[in-house]
Structure formats: structure tokens, C-alpha cells
């Protein structure tokens, strides 16, 4: 088990590595290079922002990193496991254990309580009911929603919904937290609140990869990967001492 203590002890461990990652789409007779060969390394406990104009390939990269999709070419090694070429069910297992998603539109089950939403990854991990509820409540407590466990998403504010989504992403102790424009649907005050949650998580050892097009959001990250036309344009390391080398 990769506990958070372990992460801090191995702060330089590479958790994501891609080599020549390509994703091609066929549009009629034309071949679109959504990703044209991406090489990158991300270390444990890094806080990364992926930026780029629309069409730059950042959604495609995010889908590949999140194991929602497989590359046409190239290698992707996640936490020591080569992911390219895995079948649907194996990818589902990796999503379940290694990745916590946070979406722009929250993507909570509308008819289920906050607690049940957070339990969902544990259900698919086969965790017994009692332990599941315990863990889900804990996760909700870490995002300050211990008193909202039985509320449905439509009874919660936007910020609260996103915090439920973050609790869901964290509940299975994933290797990476993968956030896709997590503040895109929130007002600036709530955005700030959510960004603070991410910073706290990062401070406690969580690896975070955030796709965004907002500069003031990306500024919170340690490193910004900018994509253009399916290629990495720049690795711009900022902030503190962890100028993770590439």
C-alpha cells in the first residue's frame, strides 16, 4: 500500500512517465494528430498544471493519463505499470485504484447521497459495506462535509458538490488526483476555496495533475506543462524548491 508517508519518503519517485505518446484520429481521409509524441515525467507529490489552447491536445492527454483511453503509439507507465495495451477491465481497475478524477461538471450521481457518491469507487473496489461507509465518511470529513453526508447533489452548493467529488476522488487513496478544469463552473470565491483544498492535499503528499486554461489557477501549481498542436511546448517550473527535472 502506497501510504502518504511512503510518498513523502520517496519524494523523487517517478509516478508517471510517457515516451513518444501519440494519439491519432481518423477524420474522413485526414489523420488528426491529437497528440504527436509527448514525453514527460511526473514525480510523486508534484503539483502539475497542464495548459494549452483548445485543440492543443490537453483533453486527449488527460484522457490518456486518466486511463480512460489508450494511446495509438508510445508508452505510458503509471506507478510502474505499463498501461498501453491493457484491456477495458484492466483499465477500469487502474482507474479505480490509481486515479481520482475531479471534473469541471462535478459528475456526481444526481439521485445518490453525498455519502453514496463517495462510496462508489469503494464499491467497485469490492470493499465491504461497513468499511466503505467508514472510509467515505472520513473522506467527506477531510473536505469539511461531515455534516452533509445524506444530502443529494441538488441540495448542495457548487463548491460543496465539487468537494464531494474531491472526496470521491480521494477515497481509494489514488496515486494521482486528476482534475479537469475543477473550478470552471464555480464563482471566483468558491474557486479559491476549492484551490485551497487542492493545496492542502498537495501539502499532505498528494500528487495532483490539473488541466486548466486559467493562468491564475495554474499559478498555484509547481510546474506548468503547456501543450500546443499535440506537443509539449514548455515545462515551466515555478514556485518552490522542487524544480523537478525533465
Amino acid at each position, binding site marked *: 500500500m502506497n501510504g502518504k508517508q511512503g510518498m513523502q519518503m520517496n519524494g523523487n519517485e517517478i509516478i508517471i512517465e510517457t515516451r513518444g505518446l501519440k494519439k491519432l484520429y481518423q477524420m474522413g481521409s485526414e489523420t488528426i494528430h491529437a497528440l504527436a509524441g509527448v514525453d514527460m515525467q511526473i514525480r510523486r507529490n508534484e503539483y502539475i498544471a497542464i495548459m494549452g489552447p483548445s485543440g492543443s491536445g490537453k483533453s486527449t492527454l488527460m*484522457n490518456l493519463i*486518466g486511463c*480512460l*483511453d489508450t494511446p495509438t503509439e508510445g508508452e505510458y507507465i503509471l506507478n510502474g505499470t505499463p498501461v498501453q495495451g491493457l484491456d*477495458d*477491465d484492466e483499465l*477500469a*481497475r487502474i*482507474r*479505480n*485504484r490509481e486515479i481520482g*478524477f475531479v*471534473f469541471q461538471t462535478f*459528475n*456526481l*450521481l444526481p*439521485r445518490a447521497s453525498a455519502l453514496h457518491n463517495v462510496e*462508489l*469507487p469503494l*464499491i*467497485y*473496489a*469490492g470493499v465491504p*459495506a461497513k468499511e466503505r461507509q467508514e472510509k467515505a465518511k472520513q473522506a467527506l470529513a477531510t473536505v469539511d462535509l461531515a455534516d452533509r453526508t445524506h444530502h443529494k447533489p441538488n441540495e448542495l452548493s457548487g463548491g460543496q458538490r465539487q468537494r464531494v467529488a474531491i472526496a*470521491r476522488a480521494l477515497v*481509494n487513496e489514488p496515486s494521482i488526483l486528476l482534475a479537469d478544469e475543477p473550478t470552471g463552473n464555480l464563482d471566483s470565491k468558491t474557486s479559491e476555496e476549492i484551490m485551497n483544498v487542492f493545496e492542502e492535499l498537495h501539502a499532505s503528499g498528494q500528487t495532483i495533475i490539473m488541466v486548466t486554461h486559467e493562468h491564475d489557477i495554474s499559478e498555484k501549481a509547481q510546474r506548468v506543462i503547456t501543450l500546443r498542436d499535440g506537443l509539449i511546448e514548455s515545462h515551466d517550473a515555478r514556485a518552490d524548491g522542487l524544480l523537478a527535472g525533465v
Partner: protein
Amino acid sequence: MFVLEGIWIALQQVWAHKLKSAFTLIGVIIGITFLIAVITVVEGMNRYVQEDFAGSLFGVNTFTVVRRSRISTGAETEERRRRQARNPDLTLHDVEVVQRAVPDAWRLAYSSDRGFDEVTYADRNRRNIRLIGASEGYEALQGWEVLTGRGLTPLDERRGLKVAVIGAEIAEKLFPDVEPVGKEIRIGSHRFEVVGVWDKQGGLFGNIRDASILLPFSVYRQTYARNPSEVDQISVKMRSLEEMEAAQVAVEGALRTDRGLRPGEENDFWIETSSELLDTWDKIVRVLFAAIPGLVSISLVVGGIVIMNIMLLSVAGRVREIGIRKAVGARRRDIMIQFLAESSTLSIIGAMVGILLGIGIAKAVEAFTPMPASVPPWGIAAGLTLGLLVGVGSGLYPAYRAARQDPIVALRSE
């Protein structure tokens, strides 16, 4: 766990859209209702025939010699029926032959009977009755017991007394508030003193006893018989099945000898037993049960198609949910199981409603007609199993479609 999830979602949907659910499930409901109603009524009749009717009409270990078969098995040919029609009448001489053939008979009795228009007492009457002229021992052989008064005695027979023992329905009709015993009833142009009333048999075939009037055979013969020496049936009751079978063979041989039939020639009389009746009934039941699957499966197939459509709609409306589940780690089979559980729950709810309605219909039939109803546990099990099968069957394709959703596309859908 996803099974519970599917069941829970299905229950919520049924509860939230009661009318829509009723329409969704109507095919399954009708199919199972029909199944249960038919099974229940047939099973009820079955038990009745086996336990009450066969026993009370023929009695156990009893066989009856008649001129020609009274039960249509559906198997005999037209020619055979014509030949039987030429069989000679049974007579008192045949009674002697039978008596000689089975001297150790536990009970032996003979009788003749005919339908009669009307019996009257004072200004009251009862129509459509059966007059039975019975020899001594007939009531004991039939297992009939008097409720009030007495049965027929050898003395009545010998002296040719004009006495009658009447069925319960006749007594209720003619004597709503007086004691029938000792009263004088009129059958056609003759008067009879009521000496007893049979206890009520009731049930589907109850009118056989309850609408009958028993007279001494000698009196019946002189008063109502078309041919004074004619006997309609000679019944023999033995103490065991083996004895009965042996006696049956003895009687058959004695009658053949007496009538001079050559070996290979068919009997010109007929021997009935309760097992013969039960065989016939079994055939009827088998035909009924053979017809059920066809009728039931039509409505279940229709019901399954409706459920499948509803499930396809449900899948289409929950693509995003499927995407979310896949993103957090649901495998294809997890999604499959969830939707299969949902369709099965829907269908089983339909089956349960059908079972309740079917039992309701059967109970109504039991209450308003003389037909008995009996709900066999296997009928309920069959209903639920069919419900499950329809649910799984109709859910397969929608569940497969759901499981195959691409999570990226699904997450983007509205």
C-alpha cells in the same frame, strides 16, 4: 453490490412512476396472472377430483359394471362407440351372476336411476332431480350418510314401501323451515314419505348426491323404470386394491361365460373404476397444462419486449451515470450486472403482482362458482422464475449496450 444497486434503482423507479411502471409491466403481469389463475383452478379441480370426487362417486377399491362406458376418454373410436351402443341392458340376472362370481364381496349393490322433472311438497317444488332406485347396501357402498332420519332398510325393499331419502339441496328447497322427515312428497303421480336426508356433499359435483332422491329398488322398478328387469349399474366394493382387481377379473369372466362370448370377442358390458376416471382427468389436465406455456409465453415475450424498450430508454437517459461509474472503476460486467438486476427487479415485481392477481382471480372463481381453487407452491415458484427469466432476457441487450459505453463519450454526454 451492484446487484443491490440495480434492485434499489428499479424499486425507486417503480415507486416514482407508478403508472408508467404498470404499463411497462402489463405484459408480464397478464402472463403471470393467467398462469397462476389457470394453475390454481386446475390444481384445485385436480385435488378435488382425486380426493373427493373419484372417491365419493366410485369409492375406493370399488368397481362398477355398466352397459356402456359413461366416461369419454376421447380415445375410443367411433366404431367402438357404436358397438358399445349395441350392448344388451344389464338385468337382475346379471346381478346374480356378479354375486356368484364374488361371494366374498365386502359390499355389493345395484341401482337404476333416471332424471326427473320435479318433486313437490305442498306448494313448493324443486326441478331437475335424479331418482335412484337402490338395492340394499347401496348407501353404505357409496359412503352416503343420513343427516336426519334414517336410510333405506331391507324391510323397505321387501315390502315395497313408498319411502324416500332425499338430498340436502332438495330438503333445503322443499322444507326451508320444517323438518322433512315424516312429510309426504310427490314425484310425478306418486307420493312418498321422506324418511331421511343425506348430509350435504357440496362442491363442484355435489349435485350428484344433493339433488338425488333414493327409493327402494323394488319401488323404483315398479313405478318409474322403463324396463322392470333393467339394472343400470352393479357396484362391488372390496377391502383392498388387490382383492378388487381379482374380483374385477372374476366378474368379467363370469359375465363373459354367462353371455357366451368367445375368446377374442370384446366384452358387451363395461367395467368402470375410479382409476379409469382419474386417468381421464389426468389426460384433461395434461392437455390444459400443455396449452398454458404457449399462451403464457406470448404475453411474456410481449412483456419482455416492453421491458427491453424501457431499459433501452433508461440506459440512454443514464449515459452520463454510466460514464461516471466507469471513470471511478466500474468494469463492463459491473455495469451489466447493475442493469440486469434492474430489469429483473422490474420483471419480478410484475410477476409478483401477477401472482397476487392470479390468486385473487382463482379465489374469486372459488367464491362465485362451485370450482375449487388451490395455490400450489410450485406455481408461485414457476411464476417468479419466469419473471426472473423475462427480466434477465429482456435486460441483456440494454445491459450490453450500457456496458459497452465509451467512458469519454459518456462523460461528455448531457
